[in-house]
């Protein structure tokens, strides 16, 4: 097998037949699943003749709603993989008492590394970015984001990173250094293989994408609000999106620097984080968590925004303490930069420094507490409807408080010394991220799905999924608190302490519920698509919504608003319904400019992903070609000046008037029947 001499290394670098995953049955099965899945999708598209449609309608689209939906698709695919990986680890630990189980230590280490990296960078980030992309422009009364092409580039960089993660399952072994990629586990001496390189480049692509998304979203909020939409009339989701995007702008560069310098260590033999040559691993820990802690709030703030919308909407009340929620969000965003050291209290700083960061960390509990009270008071004396998004919000409030309290425990350096690196920590951050982020994103998916596709998601299967997510989380992670206090270290592939076993078995059962939850989401989607006629809500307002996006058709037209709204109140659509001015008949329509499709983003993202693959495998020609192709795509695009397409006023008028006529004929729904097929998307309060 010619792998080190002749033409082979020039073409294939260090890639050889050994890179295929035949070293383990599970790895082979997983890789086959990816390959078969990809082939099936490709075959299906060919059979249905939908490649052209996919390319024109989706992949090259610059419509913020479609880009948002594609982000969510990426997130859901990656969620499926990472939940399965998590379940494999839970299953291993459920049988691992005095027993090597079915996973080799190295394979187990790969699993917790991919699970964490995917969940953070390729599930959570694309999910929240997708939801922001989809909902935010409509909420502020805009037709587009500020930089539609940049948006597509961000999407395709994210897709490239996610693709690289998938490729790593088939070709080569992933890093064993965890999602945080600490050297020396990831330096060239300890791990000269391709794993850390996969991690570096997948994460870097995601990081660059998020930086650009942050810029795009922040500028959109500053510059694209409709008439009368002053900042203090924006829905709260927009405020949380603003804070998240500002955090992205400032907190993603540290990650890019950390992965970049680690790459220099590995590729060019430099000494940033090495044990010798004057390197200092602590610089990596500081750089990484300078990103990593704001990242936690990048993840959670949009979910807070979603909960604020959902709780207000399904309590039929204006959000309580709107201003205090904004201040609290801002405080959290600022404080998030002052606490990073709490991720490594045990790594040698002075007690005084630890104390300072401990106090700063506990301080974050205050604005978060304010939010919880605001949400409770929003529900108080309201008519709470227990729809699926609201159920998630309720479960979130209970479970998140528990997670928050364990966070306050961990913020105390003295306690942290006792439980650090134990499964107590694993329980804590899953407690924040599953009920916090994941429930919020699924609530958002359920809430805004009709706006994207024109029909509601099936309510019953939504409840089944909800039940499984909650039961699954509680069973899989709450036992890890006592287990951590008993001293079980995290990332343990085998243990010899019989007292751990009952807890790990319960956690294993929890993992089964989480798999069931995932399956329920799939079933829900399939059933909803089959019943789409029955679930259709063409009127556009299935939930008696309060914000601007509910005053336009479901699915939303490409240009969002036939005539740009002018608002004079918070919860503008609700106010319009009260005044009887919702669904206005416009006299004057104008031509609307929308961005033309562009393949620049696709070419850019795929070229850089190919370049990253080349770097991972030392195929230098591919790295050079990929980078040049990416630059070429941007240069070529700069010569295209005709980037906008006009939708003529007459066409807008025709569509808008057809919809208004339809709305007038629809039966109005009261809130008791909003989850039945009587719901056609016109709320009783606004019957015209």
């Amino acid at each position, binding site marked *: 097998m010619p792998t080190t001499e002749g033409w082979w290394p020039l073409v294939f670098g260090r890639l050889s037949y050994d890179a295929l995953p035949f070293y383990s049955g599970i790895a082979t099965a997983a890789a086959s699943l990816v390959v078969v899945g990809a082939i099936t999708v490709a075959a299906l598209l060919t059979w249905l003749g939908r490649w052209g449609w996919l390319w024109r309608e989706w992949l090259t689209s610059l419509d913020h709603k479609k880009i948002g939906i594609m982000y969510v698709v990426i997130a859901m695919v990656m969620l499926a993989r990472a939940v399965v990986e998590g379940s494999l680890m839970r299953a291993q630990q459920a049988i691992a008492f005095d027993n090597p189980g079915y996973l080799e230590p190295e394979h187990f280490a790969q699993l917790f590394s991919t699970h964490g990296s995917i969940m953070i960078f390729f599930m959570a980030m694309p999910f929240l970015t997708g939801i922001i992309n989809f909902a935010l422009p409509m909420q502020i009364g805009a037709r587009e984001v*500020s*930089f539609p092409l940049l948006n597509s580039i961000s999407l395709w960089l994210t897709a490239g990173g996610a693709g690289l993660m998938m490729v790593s399952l088939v070709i080569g072994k992933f890093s064993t250094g965890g999602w945080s990629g600490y050297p020396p586990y990831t330096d060239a001496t300890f791990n000269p293989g391709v794993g850390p390189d996969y991690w570096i480049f997948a994460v870097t692509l995601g990081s660059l994408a998020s*930086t650009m998304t*942050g*810029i*795009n979203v*922040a*500028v959109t909020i*500053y*510059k*694209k609000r409709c008439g009368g939409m002053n900042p203090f009339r924006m829905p709260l989701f927009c405020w949380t999106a603003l804070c998240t995007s500002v955090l992205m*702008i*400032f907190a*993603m*560069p*540290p990650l*890019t*620097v950390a992965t*970049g*310098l680690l790459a*220099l*260590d590995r590729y*060019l*033999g*430099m*000494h*940033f984080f*090495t044990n*010798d*040559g*004057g*390197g*200092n691993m602590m*610089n990596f820990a500081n*750089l990484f968590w*300078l990103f990593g802690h704001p990242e936690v709030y990048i993840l959670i703030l949009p979910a807070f925004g979603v909960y604020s919308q959902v709780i207000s909407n399904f309590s039929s009340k204006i959000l309580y303490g709107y201003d205090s929620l904004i201040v609290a969000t801002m405080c959290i965003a600022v404080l998030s930069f002052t606490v990073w050291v709490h991720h490594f209290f045990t790594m040698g700083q002075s007690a005084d420094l630890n104390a300072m960061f401990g106090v700063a960390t506990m301080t974050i509990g205050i604005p978060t507490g304010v939010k919880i009270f605001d949400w409770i008071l929003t529900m108080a004396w309201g008519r709470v409807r227990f729809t699926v998004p609201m159920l998630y919000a309720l479960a979130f409030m209970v479970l998140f408080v528990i997670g928050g309290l364990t966070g306050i425990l961990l913020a105390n350096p003295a306690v942290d010394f006792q439980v650090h690196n134990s499964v107590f920590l694993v329980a804590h951050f899953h407690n924040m991220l599953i009920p916090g982020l994941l429930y919020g994103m699924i609530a958002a998916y359920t809430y805004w799905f009709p706006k994207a596709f024109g029909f509601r998601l099936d309510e019953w299967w939504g409840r089944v999924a909800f039940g499984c997510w909650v039961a699954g989380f509680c069973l899989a992670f709450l036992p890890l608190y006592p287990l951590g206090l008993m001293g079980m270290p995290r990332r343990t592939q085998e243990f010899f302490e019989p007292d751990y076993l009952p807890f790990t078995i319960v956690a294993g059962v929890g993992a089964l519920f989480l798999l069931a939850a995932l399956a329920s989401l799939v079933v829900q989607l399939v059933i909803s698509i089959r019943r789409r006629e029955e679930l259709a809500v063409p009127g556009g307002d299935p939930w008696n919504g309060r914000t601007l996006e509910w005053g336009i058709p479901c699915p939303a037209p490409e240009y969002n608003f036939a005539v740009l709204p002018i608002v004079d109140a918070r919860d503008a659509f609700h106010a319009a319904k009260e005044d009887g001015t919702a669904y206005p008949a416009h006299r004057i329509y104008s031509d609307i400019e929308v961005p033309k499709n562009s393949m620049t983003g696709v070419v850019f993202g795929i070229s850089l992903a190919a370049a990253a693959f080349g770097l991972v495998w030392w195929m230098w020609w591919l790295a050079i070609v990929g980078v040049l192709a990416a*630059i070429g795509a941007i*240069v070529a695009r*700069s*010569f295209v*000046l005709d980037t906008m397409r006009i939708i003529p006023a007459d066409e807008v008028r025709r569509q808008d008037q057809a919809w208004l006529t339809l709305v007038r004929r629809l039966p109005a729904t009261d809130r008791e029947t909003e989850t039945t097929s009587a719901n056609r998307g016109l709320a009783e309060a606004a019957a015209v």
Partner: protein
Amino acid sequence: MSVLTPHRHPGLNLGHTDPETHREAEETLFGFWVFLMSDLVLFALLFATYASMLGATDGGPGPRDVFEVSSAALETGVLLLSSLTMGMASIAMKYKEPPHRLYGWLAATLVLGLVFLGLEARDFIKMASEGATPQRSGWLSAFYALVSTHGLHVAAGCVWLALSIVQLAVFGLRSEVKLRIMRLALFWHLLDVVWIFIFSVVYLGGLA
């Protein structure tokens, strides 16, 4: 009609001379400023890494052994001069001076940018030949990472300058082209600011 459009942004404003492009500039330039902020965070972290590795010479050469103030000063002069020519290009564009002036100033900026890169490459080669390679120590790794990240930005700026000259020739002074030159100017001046810090912190600080 108001004399000034209400929205002004730091940097060159076209309010008086080209109101239409000025209006379009609002969103694009604001976005670019935000990008520059993010880029500055990247440099800030490279500076912080450099500062934390000042002592990490691992028995190898230190700042006094490898830096030459004359060469760094020359580079500083060339880069500052290029900022002046870039500024002159912006003014030529704003006041619609004859096109050859805009071409001339942009070309001068490009030449100065390339000279700067050449001088920097000469420094690096000389240092490496004395054994001060990036692999030698943590301090040298941090030095090369910081200074060549700046150099990479200048190189990107040079490509952008060349592209701007081509686009001027192809499209003339359309507002799209103007907006790109306005952003290029901001980018170029920022690189100057970063270099001032490199010169002060790395070179002067190292030799002090």
